[in-house]
């Protein structure tokens, strides 16, 4: 008996990420300091290496025993996820001691969550994708509740875990039903099997039920209405850097997996399901934006804003053209970086074990901490979609592609939503620059400051020179549609 | 067995085959229970009491029948005729069901235990896994008994039992792995067939790791069967009678029946997995005679280990719960894992096994037995010299 070791290079980034997680877990046991800064550096190093390995492994081979593909799409997300995770790690290096997190497993869990995400984005088999999703979720459940002495953190973990387990069950049931009909869990074979049947006929109801459950499970993970209810509570209760990781990397990974499923496995069904995506997109962004208007807590506001952005991204999934797909990929990168910046500023405002989260807490930030205020402004404006920042470019690509695909009404809704969103994003700016408060002294937080400044810089850079990332995004997207 | 039933089904096409097969299985199962399991469990109770008595310089039951041999029947009859007391505060349905579950768990294990080359109820291809699975259900019955009794001691007994069985199931399963690795099958008949009648062909002498596995298996099996020194769930001195405190009459006897019957299961498993099972030299061509010889071979091997378990019970004190857990998780589990890995390495080095290693191991074991016997003789002689009565 021989093992199928052909193409094992495909697995190198994944294997490295898992192995590095184990290594950090082991090293962490011997960590003398409770600040775990060295462990953070070690994690960041590993994540950078993952990005490097996946870049160098591009084109090494495509599929490993039909389970994992290292195509341009995977590589794009490997790099994106590694970068976002490095940001989260840098934010955490100051935030972990500030928030009173005493568990050195924090960083290994982030690494395992990244490993799970990597599996999700590169899986070409529903079961492998599910396993990646569960690995990621399991790590994030724990990360959300890692501050055991904090009630909100407990609440966040419990809520996320219970609802997440429910969503996973739905997802798995959906996979089972799809397997029952198509006889395969490999994305390509599923597509072929669906294409060869009359899937709208009455005797394929089980298939549609499976597809519905699968989409519901993913809708939970990307926080789309009506599966979004956990988001504000979890983002609010989880440690801020974990919220940052969840809002950016986890969302990007879930979207990548969703894109693969929707555009590869379910490609034959999608023309008849685009109305569903349409409704999801419209309701998600409208709900997110309008509820965000009423929030006084910035973390909750960002959570609703993240729901709204899920809606914008779903516009691209609805359109499902090559341009729209590439725009989704680009937008995920832009959204990730600017959101990291926003959450990073929140983390930077943490006092010892006490997070400053209300909008009123931002008063006077413009005078007292001009750099942080500038970063926050850039991120808010970018999230709003102000040119020439990354958020604007992303929305521009996204909406143009949707218009070309003929979804005029949806685009109008999206644009109106962007206008509405200006109200709450600008509310933060107003508090920072037009209200005053006494200056407080802060301890130096070099890693946090570096990370948020870098995030803001990348946001500006992505807006001014979008073409390299956009090019990579469109190559990546075409690799799953048209093959290598 | 199955062939016979299939033939019966073919002869009576008007009766659904499944019903016939189920009925046949039930009848055969009842036969096995009444002709083999009940007497063996009962007689074991008499043997156990006599053995302890001998070890503790007492006489033990000797009134009913020759040498007290019929004591078990008398006890059984007495308990059958006793009132079945159901205390008022118990959770009645669960309280009633619990003993049956415990008995069912160990009786079901007999399905895959071989009594001879052709004497097995069903040669499942997952035999040994089936036995570990089905015996793990016993713990549900014990927990049920402990909880439904609505009594502190019962409850503590039930919880201790659950802790113990769940924990020791892991090293137990891990010590079976090396055997499965060596014989390449999970079927109990296949495992027996992979060994010979001569001691050096037994699995326990295949390599040093398997020898250790064999010892670990016996220890874990004792713990799984709630036997001393691991009988915490029914520790008389602390918990009255543990999970069985509130039970009386036949229900209480059922727990003891399960314990004694389980002893035989443990012995038969040790014999099958590590000691060649029913393998006998092919001294005759008569299949009946061979089957009888095979039956007695495995019976004697199994009963030897039943005797050792009694011996241990009469010799060793009970250990504490924290010691029990520490022993399992800190020593047995890592050792069992090492054994699995070691056996795998050994099989890579010697894919066909090594005769030299086998003979060396037999020699080592013989030497240990020799030294042990000499010490026992020495101590006995010294005790006599010191005048400790009729030892």
């Amino acid at each position, binding site marked *: 008996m021989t093992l199928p070791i052909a193409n094992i290079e495909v697995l190198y980034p994944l294997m490295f990420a898992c192995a590095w997680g184990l290594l950090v877990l082991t090293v962490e046991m011997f960590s003398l300091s409770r600040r775990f800064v060295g462990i953070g550096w070690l994690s960041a190093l590993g994540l950078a290496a993952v990005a490097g390995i996946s870049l160098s492994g591009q084109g090494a081979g495509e599929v490993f025993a039909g389970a994992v593909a290292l195509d341009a799409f995977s590589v794009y997300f490997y790099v994106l996820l590694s970068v976002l995770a490095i940001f989260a790690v840098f934010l955490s290096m100051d935030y972990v001691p500030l928030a009173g997190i005493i568990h050195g497993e924090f960083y290994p*869990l982030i690494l395992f969550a990244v490993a799970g995400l990597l599996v999700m984005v590169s899986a070409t088999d529903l079961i492998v994708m599910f396993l990646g999703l569960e690995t990621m979720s*399991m790590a994030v459940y724990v990360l959300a509740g890692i501050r055991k002495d904090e009630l909100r953190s407990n609440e966040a973990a419990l809520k996320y875990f219970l609802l997440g387990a429910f969503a996973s069950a739905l997802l798995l049931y959906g996979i089972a039903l799809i397997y029952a009909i198509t006889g395969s869990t490999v994305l390509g074979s599923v597509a072929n099997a669906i294409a060869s049947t009359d899937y709208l006929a009455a*005797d394929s109801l089980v298939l549609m039920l499976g597809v519905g459950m699968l989409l519901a499970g993913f809708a939970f993970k990307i926080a789309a209405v009506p599966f979004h209810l956990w988001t504000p509570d979890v983002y609010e209760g989880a440690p801020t850097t974990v919220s940052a990781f969840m809002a950016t990397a986890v969302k990007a990974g879930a979207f990548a997996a969703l894109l693969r499923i929707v555009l590869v496995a379910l490609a034959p069904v999608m023309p008849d399901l685009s109305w569903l995506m349409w409704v999801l997109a419209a309701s998600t962004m409208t709900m997110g934006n309008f509820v965000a208007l009423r929030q006084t807590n910035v973390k909750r506001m960002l959570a609703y804003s993240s729901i709204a952005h899920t809606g914008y991204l779903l516009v691209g999934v609805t359109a499902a053209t090559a341009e729209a797909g590439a725009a989704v990929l680009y937008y995920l990168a832009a959204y990730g970086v600017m959101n990291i910046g926003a959450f990073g500023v929140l983390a930077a405002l943490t006092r010892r074990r006490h997070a400053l989260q209300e909008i009123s807490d931002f008063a006077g930030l413009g005078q007292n901490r001009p750099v942080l205020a500038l970063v926050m402004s850039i991120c808010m404006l970018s999230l709003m979609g102000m040119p020439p920042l990354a958020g604007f470019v992303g929305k521009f690509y996204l909406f143009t592609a949707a218009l070309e695909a003929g979804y005029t009404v949806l685009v109008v809704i999206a644009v109106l939503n962007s206008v509405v969103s200006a109200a709450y994003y600008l509310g933060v700016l107003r508090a920072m620059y037009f209200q005053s408060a006494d200056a*407080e002294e802060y301890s130096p937080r070099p890693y946090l400051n570096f990370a948020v400044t870098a995030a803001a810089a990348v946001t500006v850079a992505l807006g001014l020179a979008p073409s390299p990332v956009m090019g990579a995004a469109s190559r990546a997207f075409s690799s799953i549609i048209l093959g290598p | 067995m199955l062939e016979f039933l299939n033939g019966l089904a073919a002869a009576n096409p008007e009766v659904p085959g499944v019903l016939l097969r189920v009925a046949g299985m039930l009848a055969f199962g009842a036969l096995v229970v009444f002709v083999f399991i009940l007497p063996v469990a009962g007689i074991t109770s008499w043997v156990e009491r006599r053995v302890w008595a001998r070890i503790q310089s007492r006489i033990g039951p000797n009134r009913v029948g020759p040498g007290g041999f019929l004591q078990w029947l008398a006890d059984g009859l007495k308990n059958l005729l006793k009132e079945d007391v159901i205390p008022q505060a118990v959770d009645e349905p669960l309280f009633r069901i619990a003993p049956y579950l415990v008995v069912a768990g160990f009786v079901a294990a007999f399905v895959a235990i071989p009594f001879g080359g052709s004497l097995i109820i069903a040669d499942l291809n997952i035999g040994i*896994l089936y036995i570990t699975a089905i015996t793990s259900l016993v713990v549900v019955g014990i927990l049920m008994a402990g909880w439904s009794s609505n009594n502190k001691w019962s409850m503590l007994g039930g919880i201790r039992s659950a802790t113990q069985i769940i924990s020791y199931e892991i090293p137990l399963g891990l010590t079976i792995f090396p055997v499965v690795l060596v014989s390449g099958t999970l079927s109990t008949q296949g495992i027996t067939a992979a060994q010979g009648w001569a001691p050096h062909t037994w699995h326990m002498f295949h390599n040093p790791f398997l020898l250790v596995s064999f010892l670990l298996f016996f220890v874990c099996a004792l713990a799984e069967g709630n036997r001393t020194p691991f009988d915490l769930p029914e520790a008389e001195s602390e918990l009255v009678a543990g999970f069985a405190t509130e039970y009386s009459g036949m229900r209480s006897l059922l727990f003891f029946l399960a314990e004694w019957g389980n002893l035989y299961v443990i012995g038969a498993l040790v014999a099958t997995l590590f000691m060649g099972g029913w393998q006998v030299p092919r001294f005759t061509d008569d299949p009946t005679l061979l089957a009888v010889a095979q039956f007695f071979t495995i019976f004697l091997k199994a009963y030897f280990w039943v005797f050792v378990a009694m011996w241990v019970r009469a010799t060793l004190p009970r250990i504490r719960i924290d010691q029990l857990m520490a022993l399992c998780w800190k020593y047995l589990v890592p050792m069992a894992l090492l054994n699995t890995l070691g056996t795998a390495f050994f099989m890579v080095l010697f894919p066909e096994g090594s005769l030299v290693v086998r003979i060396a191991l037999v020699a080592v074991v013989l030497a240990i037995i020799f030294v042990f016997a000499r010490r026992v003789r020495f101590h006995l002689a010294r005790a006599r010299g010191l005048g400790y009565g009729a030892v």
Partner: protein
Amino acid sequence: MSPYLFYPLACLTIAGALGVVLNNNPVRSALSLVATLFLLAVYYIALQAHLVAALQIIVYAGAVMVLFLFVITLLNLSPDPADRTSPLFGAAALGSALLLAVVLGRALWATTLPGAANTPLPEGFGTTVVLARQLFSEYLVAFELTSILLLVAVVGAVVLAKRDPSPADMDAPAPGREA
């Protein structure tokens, strides 16, 4: 699978599942779940998946459920006073259950499953050897990933369940303390 086996078994399984939901007493609920899971193993046996059946019993009925029972008995929960939940809740639960049953039933009724035809099983179906070969070839990635998943779950459980060091230890040098 013979109908003489299937229908009685199905009735028992459903009875067990109903017992889980309808019992007020958590221990009885958990025991019903044990029975249900055990009965599921019987289906696997009838479908020639012996190894899966044994694993089902060992893992679910044997280990997971015993831990459940263990926790429930340790907590010594009293029976749930049923009147705490409003009848509206019960009606909603019943309604959605019925709705799900109707949708699933309708879908399954109309669908001809490709595996439903009585095709002969491949050689050695359900045996350990065949299963192991599949696990270590076609499903190798999934198999290895499962071990990572379990490891993460173990690490997470330890993080959440481990007793924290005393507050004195936690108040190590605090550079983040505000002025």
